[in-house]
């Protein structure tokens, strides 16, 4: 499902791009699978077709999807290549967070403690799982 949330800070075309990548990454969309047409998607989501077109053009530029003249839009990337890109994004986010944490004076040990705490909540590394894993 390609999803758009109007409360999300990201522009709608970015949300569509991320949504398609997520579906490829999780295996919900596999290589050579057909994507809905611009018109079908704009009708389904109630979104301006130019916005959908922009998302599709960007995905095509990145080599994630490919247009076959007269046939439609198809998935071109494999989940591995999308995941590789996701990993790079995560690495970037972590370095940004690390810099921010550093500037706030949060020590490296503190960050490591936060990660192992998360592991414990999620039931990893032999820690006891909790319901839902969220603390209030």
């Amino acid at each position, binding site marked *: 499902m390609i999803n758009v949330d109007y409360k999300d800070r990201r522009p709608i075309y970015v949300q569509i791009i991320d949504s398609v990548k997520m579906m490829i990454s999780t295996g919900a969309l596999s290589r050579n699978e057909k994507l809905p047409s611009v018109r079908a998607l704009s009708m389904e*989501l109630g979104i301006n077709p*130019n916005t959908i077109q922009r998302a599709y053009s960007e995905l095509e530029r990145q080599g994630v999807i490919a247009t076959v003249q007269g046939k439609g839009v198809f998935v071109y990337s494999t989940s591995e290549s999308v995941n590789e890109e996701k990993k790079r994004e995560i690495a970037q986010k972590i370095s940004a967070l690390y810099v921010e944490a550093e*500037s706030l004076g949060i020590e490296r040990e503190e960050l490591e403690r936060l990660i192992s705490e998360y592991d414990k909540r999620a039931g990893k590394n032999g820690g006891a799982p909790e319901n839902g894993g969220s603390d209030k």
Partner: protein
Amino acid sequence: MIEIKNLSKTYESSGTRSLDGITMNVKDGSVLGLIGTNGAGKSTLLRILAGIYRQDEGEVLIDGQEVFDNNSVKSTIAYISDDQLFLPSSTLGDMSRFYANLYRNYSAESFDRLVKEFGLDPNRKVNTFSKGMRRQGEVILALSICPKYLLCDETFDGLDPIMREFAAGKIMSEVARRGMTVILSSHNLREMEQFCDGMALIHGGKLLINKSIDEMRDNIYRCQAVFTGEAALDGVIDAHSVKRTGKLVSFIATGTAEELEAKVKTAAERSLCSVTYFEALPLTLEEMFSYELNSRGLNKLIYKELTEDVG
């Protein structure tokens, strides 16, 4: 194409100048959001475009022709008024037959299909419908006209979220299929992004902002940068809403992401330090408008009214 040149309109009864020299074009196949507070002149503009009112000064050309008293042009325009217009004690079916006589390209097949899809009874009297159902009825009739131009005056404000999405989907599908041009008015900014590729802000009868959303978005960013030392932005970047938390500096500035990154590097070099981290994040529609209004020295009141939730 819709061409509006130096358009003005004063209401004789009250003497209010509702439109004051508006000039703008609306390209075919685009969806324009007409934004403004109550009384800004949105409805007046739409009524002139629909050929209901006549302007005092200026010109409105649709496909190169004057609209007022021009039946062949008016036959290509569907207008969904803010006040709902149905013949007394009519059904949607009656209205459909009535419209079929007025509009050249009216499609009874499209009406039958849409009535089923929306789940409305065409033989039930419209005055027994809820307000939302009547709105849906108006959207069905307007789309059955197969208009080249669709003018909606706050049409979506009265629909619940699910029906809103559904009705919008039907309209957007016509934009995609045959390049229908749409102008939507609203006094709320928040939910316009999904529909529109262009936004026009009217205030006090004047056009303050008229830009494509992509053009706006690709030229303004909230930047976050981390420097190795104290970097002065002044003189290099025209930064707004600057916030500093430790080494992290965040600000809003105009330019493409690449231009801004280059400027941030220059700022660092001048202050004899370097950039360890840079990110350009897109602004929301609300933030972009707030920035535009502030940069023109306009008070925040307009913005506040535009972003408050309706109802």
